């Protein structure tokens, strides 16, 4: 099921939480929702899941307007809210069965679905405990399990990996990736490597507006512009090397960053790469090229550039 969001706006009193945003998520896509605190991520997710009303604009799920058929469309969505609220006094299995019943899973299928989710989320040892007795990581797994209990076509996850240990994070990311092949997944997070590891597309919002939308590679390219290489060239005189580098056709500028360790930084002209030219140059002068690293703009830098102002 596709999700289309058109010109969505939501204000809280004088504050505009979400300001005229439009985007689309297709089936088989994992969309990463990024933004600083208070950017409007959770508000948007609450509107998609039908918890709060739409003020202006439109949300369509599978072509149907959310506002027209909220109760029915909610059945196709699995949602893990921010802070993962749970009934702490309920045992894990009862809780999952309760959630399944509310989502309209038929009675004879409920035990099967509950068992499946307990397996998928690794809750087998904890299944008879009360949720209140579980550690934060296990509670997070229960939250994920309840979101997926009715095998929804759309998953909306608000910070799904908070509180998990590194092993669990890797498992959950893999799970989200696998789910994302057939389902529509929107996840919000603060952890930037997570977005790169799990998402097909990134949406960065700031102060209620979309400031970037694209795959991690496109965003990086947009932010970076020209290619930058870090080189280590030995066996040559620093000045000569520098001069020869600058003389190359594709090179816009070169600097020696640490002359005593033979480290140089080379910036290419727009849309061109100087990797081969550098290699040929070294071969010609019999210099030894011991390092050639393309310097990529990190997602952190893109995020900072777009959201700090």
């Amino acid at each position, binding site marked *: 099921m596709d999700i289309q969001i058109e010109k969505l706006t939501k204000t809280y*009193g004088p504050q505009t939480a979400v300001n005229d945003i439009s985007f689309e998520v297709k089936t088989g896509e994992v969309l990463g929702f990024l933004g600083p605190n208070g950017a409007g991520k959770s508000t948007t997710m609450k509107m998609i899941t039908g918890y709060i009303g739409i003020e202006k604009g439109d949300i369509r799920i599978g072509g149907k307007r959310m506002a027209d058929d909220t109760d029915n469309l909610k059945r196709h969505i699995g949602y893990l809210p921010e802070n993962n*609220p749970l009934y702490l006094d309920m045992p894990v299995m009862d809780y999952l069965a309760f959630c399944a019943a509310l989502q309209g899973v038929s009675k004879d299928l409920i035990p099967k679905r509950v068992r499946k989710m307990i397996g998928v989320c690794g809750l087998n040892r904890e299944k008879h405990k009360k949720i209140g007795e579980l550690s934060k990581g296990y509670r997070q797994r229960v939250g994920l399990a309840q979101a997926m209990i009715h095998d929804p076509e759309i998953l909306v996850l608000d910070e799904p990996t908070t509180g998990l240990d590194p092993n669990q994070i890797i498992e959950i990311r893999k799970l989200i990736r696998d789910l994302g092949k057939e389902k529509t997944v929107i996840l919000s997070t603060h952890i930037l490597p997570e977005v790169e590891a799990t998402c097909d597309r990134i949406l960065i919002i700031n102060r209620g507006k979309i400031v970037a939308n694209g795959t991690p590679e496109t965003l990086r390219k947009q932010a970076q512009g020209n290619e930058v290489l870090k080189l280590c060239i030995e066996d040559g005189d620093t000045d000569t090397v520098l001069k020869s580098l600058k003389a190359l056709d594709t090179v816009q500028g070169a600097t020696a960053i640490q002359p005593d360790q033979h480290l140089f930084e080379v910036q290419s002209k727009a849309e061109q790469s100087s990797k081969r030219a550098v290699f040929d140059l070294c071969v010609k002068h019999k210099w030894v090229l011991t390092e050639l690293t393309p310097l990529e703009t990190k997602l952190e830098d893109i995020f900072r550039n777009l959201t700090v102002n």
Partner: protein
Amino acid sequence: MHTIWTIAKRELATFFDSLIAYIILGLFLGFSGFFTWLYGNDIFLVGQANLRVFFSIASWSLFFFIPAITMKMLAEERKTGTLELLLTKSVSDRQLILGKFLGSVLLVCIALVATIPYVITVSCIGDLDNGGTICGYLGLLLLSIAYTAIGIFASSITTNQIVAFMTALLIGLFFHIIFGVLAQNFTGSLGQFFDTLNLQSHFESISRGVIDSKDIVYFLSITFLGLYLGEWSLAKRHFS
């Protein structure tokens, strides 16, 4: 209907899983039993084989205990954020309210069923007026659903259980006492108006054995209004 029943069932299960249900049932039975059988203007003093005394005591104990049952219903859900969890599932605001309502009413019904030994005891002592007894229980049931609806509404407007409890008691107090007092102090149409609002007079007329559609409509209207306002207060989140 299935959704409402699922919510009500969970509500009952939570009650009986924790100590709340047992404490409330114990207090209710202890309180009404003490005043019915042991203390003050008790059943032996009346010298008749009927349960009037019990019905009047029970109306007072329910007045206090129902807010204690309903106070956490929505206030707690709001506070812990599970309200968001429920309402983003395939559950409408109305289904949630009705589920909570049904769960609380069922607990009250269990409490009322637990007083049946009183009926058996009195019918052993003398010739019990069966019609009057059934009407008395019907009155208690109607009173309970009205107070439960008020309690659900009070619980829907706050995140604090104590505030919900106090609000429910305050609203209940108007119906239980204040309208009656006002009805005595005013004459003419104003006095009549307050008398119509006075819950005690409606309750007494039913528990005397007179089933009047006016009284039933009265209790059902309070119930409907309470639940409607509760639903409205949940729906307010859409327009903040």
